[in-house]
Each structure stands twice: as structure tokens, then as C-alpha cells.
């Protein structure tokens, strides 16, 4: 995985959601944020799958908070976007912008 790697579409959505949440959130808040902005329902399984991949690439970090009784005694697993994550996001957005350049008159993108 070189540092020049670009992000997939859902990875970007997840990272952007984290940024919207103030750089930090847990599974349910991320899912709600995505749903609120895009009306798109993602499964928690898919979300964790992506977050794990991002963590593997060092773009986010996660930790378990103390368990709370409201969640059946389960901990929240918080995720925070790392500087590398912000960089990767910018890089990908930039690449997309480059690709879009000159297409603006079409009014479709």
C-alpha cells in the first residue's frame, strides 16, 4: 500500500462522515450521519468492514470506551480520523477534481 493510493467511494463517504462528526464517532453515529446526508442505509457490518480496512491502512484509529448499560453492557468503539486519513481524502478528492476538469460545461457533474 503506497502512500499514493486512492480511496474507494465508500471509504471516502465514511471518512467524510467522521469529519462531519468532528473527527470522531462510533458505528451508529457514523451510520446515522451517512443516512442523514445521503438517505443511504448502510449495514453496520459493511461499515465496520470498511472502518477496519481504513484502520489497517493507518487512516483511522479506534479504541473501546467504557461499557454502558444502555447498550446491553457493550462498549462503544470510537473511531477518529488520522492526519494520514485527511491526506488520503484530499488526494482522492483532488484526483477526482482533476478528472472532472473541462467537463463542467456539460452541467452534469
Amino acid at each position: 500500500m503506497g502512500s499514493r493510493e486512492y480511496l474507494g467511494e465508500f471509504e471516502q463517504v465514511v471518512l467524510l462522515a467522521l469529519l462531519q462528526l468532528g473527527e470522531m464517532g462510533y458505528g451508529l453515529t457514523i451510520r446515522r450521519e451517512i443516512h442523514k446526508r445521503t438517505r443511504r442505509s448502510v449495514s453496520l457490518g459493511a461499515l465496520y468492514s470498511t472502518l477496519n480496512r481504513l484502520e489497517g491502512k493507518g487512516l483511522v484509529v479506534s479504541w473501546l470506551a467504557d461499557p454502558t448499560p444502555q447498550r446491553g453492557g457493550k462498549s462503544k468503539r470510537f473511531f477518529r480520523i488520522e492526519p494520514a486519513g485527511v491526506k488520503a481524502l484530499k488526494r482522492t478528492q483532488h484526483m477526482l477534481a482533476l478528472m472532472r476538469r473541462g467537463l463542467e460545461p456539460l452541467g452534469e457533474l
Partner: protein
Amino acid sequence: MSVDHPKLPLVLRTANRFLAIALPRDDFEGLSGDLSEEFDSIRPRLGSLRAGLWYWGQTFRAVVLGTGRRFDSLREFATHGWGKDARQAVRQLAKAPGFSLTVVLTLAIGIGTNTAIFSFVNALLLRPLPYPNPDRLVEVYGFNGSEKTRLSLREVNDLKEQSRSFDGVVAFRDSAYNYAGDSAGDGGAAEHFEITRTTGDLFRVLGVPLEIGNTWPAIDDRSRSFEIVLTHELWERRFHSDPSVIGRQVLMDGFPNTITGVAPPEFTFPARVALFRCWGIDRDPNAYEQRDRRNARAIARLKPGVSLEQAATELSSIAQRLSRDFPSTNVRMQFRLSLLRDSYIADMKPYLYLLLGAVGLVLLIACANVANLLLSRGTSRRRELSIRTALGASRTILVRQLIVESTMLSLLGGVVGLTVANGVIAGILKMITIDLPPWATLRLDWTVLLFMIGISVLTGVVSGVMPAIRLSRRDPREALSEGDRGSSRQVTALGPMVIAEVTFAAVLLVGAALMMQSFIQLKTVDLGFRTDRLLTFRVGLSWRKYNLERSIAFEQRVLEGLRRIPGAADVAYTTALPLTGHEQTITISLEGQAKEQANQNPLVYFEQVNTDFLQTMGIPLRRGRLFTDGDRAGSPFVALVSDHAARRLWPGENPIGKRILPADAFRPWAPQWLTVVGVVGDVKHQSPASDPGLDIYIPFVQAGSQGGDFVIRSSIDPLALIRDAKQVIAAVDREEPASEWLTMGQIAANTIWQRRVAALVSATLGVIALLLATIGIYGVIAYTVTLRTKEIGIRSALGASASGIVRIVMLDSARSVLPGIFLGLAASVVLARSVSSLLFGVAPGDPATFSVVALVLLFVGAAAASIPALRAARRDPLVALRNE
């Protein structure tokens, strides 16, 4: 890491188990927490069902993704061999959602009902008792003549002193307490407790160490009998788990009791109780030495290496010795023993097996149905299979492919079946009106889950193997040239399936009908008294406060108070109400009998009653007179005997004026000759299925007892009188506990609850079986008709009438249904005999039952076949032929 979230419904906790297996720890922790948080937030809006479905949907996706990630090598494997088959199967099943859904639902019913009944078997028969070496724990009980009895405390002590087979013998009995509140003052309300009185060894013999504190010494005199051990639950609830309760005194029944210990969490014995109280040995010989004052149950722990048989032999030699030394009390007394588990569940066991058999049949019918469906669908897939064969797929590969498909279907059926199982379990629990043994908790544990998965796979293979072999046994050229028409081979393959289904359904229906009839007979059997609109409750008076005169006064004052309650038509009192298990049997001698003769007398039920008892219960007078107000303390001692007792004790003679001497067993007064003044109707004491006992009634004012059952016959709903009745007792003595508030109808129903459950569950299963069989027959006939479209078209083109066509199709159905009925009834003749001990008032080979079942199945067979038959008859032959 705890997997369970205690407040989540069981179905969702099951989902969590899947998650825990499929996901790495961190993922599981975060994700399941998210799931339950969101579940709680959407449930009010969407309702439990939709929120639950959402939960399972999320779980399913997470498990699929998670499993794939966790077992990357598995994903590798999935592209080869079996895995490929599985993916192929998923694609095939997704192609025919209607077909898949039908199969899954059919199997869900079969697997779900089996899982439910298995949960009961698991909880009651398989899971070990929660004590160390539970297979060495036995209950010891007595047989007096032919009647099972409890033991006296003295006898338990005899066993303890004389036997060498046991590592500890413990006496215990049930009792009740009124708790006024912690004397230290926790401000809590007064409460009624069910308690266990026990000699001190209980915890040691069971092998359960106390949480804190100590129990009392094994043998102790009565002065120390106010020592108690709290259950953990009571300690938490009323004493806030305060360890300093040890040594504290609390008021129970108005007496200070010292807390000496606290039992470990969840421990209770033998039923659910609040606390354990010392049962000290009463050194007063009048009470203690009475070997036939039998109110104790006993458990013992077998020494290592001692078998049940060896212990039984020793017990009978002790019994022999006692009968020689104490003939007046022990001449016919035998000691027996059984495993502790069996003493809880022996009377449920046959019903459990019966239901297990019934659900097994349902599953077999479901399998046959699914096999039918697979075969029918397989036929329409013939082209696909043939192409694969032509492309070089071996027959093994095809068979494997088809079996993998059916197994996937049945596993899906199993998952859906868990929901069915939960429903069935809840339904059965609702029908069980008594307490199950406290250790028998019904939960979906790994054993049950493995059972479900196991029978799912088995079901998939069983229902898939026949169709797979049939379908793969084809010459590809023949299939390709034949188009989508069926061959005669396909048609004949379906016959045996229908025969099997009808056979199983017939067996199940006969069984269900016999159980249902037995239950109805029992419900309507004459008990010897009227059960309608009777409220009953029991008051046990504390021996310390109440001597005989005072207890008589107490009972009279309560009776007077009850009489004044609006709605109370008649009120009565007895020391032992029939069917409650409070009854006491005693030995008697008759006037003019030698001692040896008297020892041969049958045991009689002995009840002290008030004047109105017999009228209130509706027990009829046959001869002589009932008790009157003239029969009081100081007047000549009188007795009433039951019909049965009169005929047995004085055959061919007039019993009026005969005299009886009760054995000194029963404590209240010195032995007195009782003169029989009347004969009354027989009463059933054990259960509606038992024979009536021999009864002797005496006026309670001539004797005196410390507690008994009160009965109110009301002109309104008897349960509505409870509040007033409680006030009456409180007004007489606030500290005496009244318990067991039940209607006589409830008491009678509780004695036959196993039969009610067995009858209702097997009837439900019978209906399910009938439905499945109907669907099965319909499916097969409809399919056969489709396969024979061309033939039928030719026939009608050649002039066959509509009724002729109908006849052909109906005969087709009859060819499978009739042998099925015949085989089913033949099997039922054999099987019904094995359950004859569970039947009542109906013979195992009852011809009416068999005829009705046969007629029902004939009707179902005809009805199921009639729709496709009429459809075939109406079809235009030209259209039918053109479609070919």
C-alpha cells in the same frame, strides 16, 4: 466478554451468539452494542417485530462479511468443491423464491416444533442437576402397603443411624411463613414466604456450600429450630446483600428467628422457596417417637461405589427390622429410593417421550413434503441437469449439488424454526400451571442450538437424497429430447412419498385423538364432589401459639367470619382437602378384631371436618346421618365413612353403629373409639384418574388440628372473595399465614396438567400434520396432472367424459392415500398399546377413533385431489395438446 444482553429478547440474543462467533472481539463489542442501542431506539417507532427483523438483517450481513474476512482461507475453499456447490445452490434457490419459501416454512415448522420439545427434554432430562455428582443423589420414600407415603422424622433418623449405603440422609418438608419485615427495620412490607424446613445436612448432602455463614447442626433439638438460612435472592432483595445479617434476628410468624447463613446464588430446594428453616428433632417422645407421623421427605447421597440396587436391598432389610420392632406403625412399611431427578420428573417423562415422538412424525411429514417439492422442481430443472451431465458432470457431483441445495434450505428452515420454537415453548409454558423444578430452566443453550443444526442437516439430507438420486439417474439424451414432459418414472417416484405422509399423519392423528379423549374424560370424570365455584385456601397455625383448644377456636372464628362475606353461600373446613396432597392416611382397628387382623386393615384417609363440609363439597349422604351441631367436644365420638370404606371394612354388614379405633398415630388426643353414624359418597384423593380412597371423617371440634383447608362455595366468581377472606383471617389473627389460594377447579386441573399439555400439544401437532399432508397430497396430484397433460388431452379428445377424467385423477390419489391409511392405522394399533398407561377412559384400539381418523384422511385425500382433478377435466384438450 459477555455475549448476552439480559434484557434483549431471546431471538436477538441468539443473533448475538452468531455475531460473537463470526466477528473479532473488538468488532463484536462495538457492533453488537450499536445494534442494541439502535434496536432500543427504533423499537417504539417500528414495533418489536420490525425492529427485530432489522436486527437480524444487520446481523446476517455482518456475519456474512465478518466470516469472509475472518476466514480468508475459507473464502478460498468456497471457490472449490463444496463451497462452489453452496454458491451454486444459493443461486438456484434465489431463482425460485416461492419454491424456496414454501420449503423453508415447511421445514421451519418441522424443525421448530422439534427444537421446542427438545428444549424441554434438554432442560428436564439431559442437563445435569446443578449439584456435584448428581447421579448419586436419591430420594427415599415409603410404601405403606401399596400406597406411596412420606416418612416420619423418626424413620429418617432410623435410616440415618442404620444404613451404610449413604453419605448423609436429610429430612425436609415444605412449609410457609409470614414475614413481618426485618426486625432491624428495612421498612419493607410484610410478606408470605414458602419455605423449606430441613435438617442441617441439606447443604452438605447436596454438595452446595453456603455463600456466607453456617447451617445448623445436623441433629438438633427443637429449641434451636428458629434458625434460618436465607436464599441469595431474599438476601439481596430484603437485606441488600448485607453480610452482617448473620446472627441477626427477624420476626417470622411472630417469633424471632436467627439468620445463620445465606445460600449461594440461584440455589433453592426442592421447589422455589424464600428461606430454609431448621427442622429440629423434637425430644418430646409424643411427637418424635411417632413413627407413623409421616410428613417428611428424605434425600440421601449414595456412598461412592454403592449402587442403587445395593442401597435398595439395605433399605428393605431396615424396613423388615422396623416392622418387627414396631409392628403397630411399620408392619407394612417399605422404603424405596429413586434418583433425585426422577422424583421430580418421573411423572412427566412418558409425556415428554410421547411429544418427542409426535414432533418427530411432524418432521418426517415435513421431510416427505419437501422431498415431493424437490422432486417436482427437479423435474422442471431436468434440462439444466442434463446439460451439466452432457458437459461431463458426474452423477456424484449432481447428487452432491442437489443435497447441498436441500441442506441449505433446511438450515434456513432451522433458523426460521428457532422463532417457531420460541413460540411453541412460550405456549407450552403458559399451559403449565405448576412450578417446574427450579433447576429446569428453558433456555436456548448450545445443546439446543446444536440439536437444531443437527436435525436441520439431517433433514436436508433425508429429504434431499431420494430426489437427488432419482433426478440424477437419467440418460441425458432422453431428457434433452423429451422436453419438459415428465416420464412415468417421475410419477411413480411420488407415490411412496404420499403413502409415507399419510401413514405418519394417521399415526399422529390417532395418538392425538386418544390423548384428547383421555383428557376430556378426565376433566368430566366424577370426583365425588362438585368443583364449581369453590374457593379454597390453607392456614397452618403455629404450634407454639395454638394448642388444640385454641386452634379449634381459631378455626371456628374464621368460619364465622367467612360466613358473613357477601357472596359466600357455604363455608367449610377440613384438615385435608382432596387432590391437594395434604391428605393423611392412618391405620385403624375395628371392634372385635385381633391385633394381627387389625394389621391387615387397609389404610384410610382421615379428615377432620366441620358440620357443613360434606354439604359444601356436595358429597352425598348414602345412609344414616351427617354431623350435626350436637356432635361437639364432650359428646360421644362419631365418624362418617365413605361407601367404599364401609363395603371394604364391613362387607355385607350394616356399618351404622360399628366402632373404629384410629391408631395412636394421630396426635391430637388419646385413642378413642369412634361410632359410625353415616355413610357418604366416595371421593377421589390423588387425581381424577385414581381410584377413590377409603375415607373416615370426624368432626374437627371433637379432635383439633393445627391447620387445614378452608372452602367457600360462592354464588359469584370465587376468586373475587379472596380479599374479603384475607381480611377475615387478619381480623382473627394477623400473624397466621393463609396460602394456596386456589379454586377447586384449579386444584383439579393442576393434578392433570401433564395430560392437558400432552393433549393440547399433540392435537395441535395433529392439525399441523393434517395440513402438511393435505398440502403434500395436493402438490403431488397437481404435479402428476401436469405431467399427464398430454395423456389426459388425448383421452378427452378421444371422448373421455369430464367425470371420467376426474375419476382417473381421484383414483391416482386413492392409490397412495388408501395404503397410507392402512399402514398408519396398523402402526397405530401397535404404538397406541405402548402409551396405554397414559390413556384414561378410552381403549388404545378404540374402533371409533380409528374409524374417524380413517374417514378424515379419506376426506382430506379426496378434497386435496379434487381441485387438480376438476382442473384437468375442464381443460380444453386442444389447448392441452397444443402446449406440448
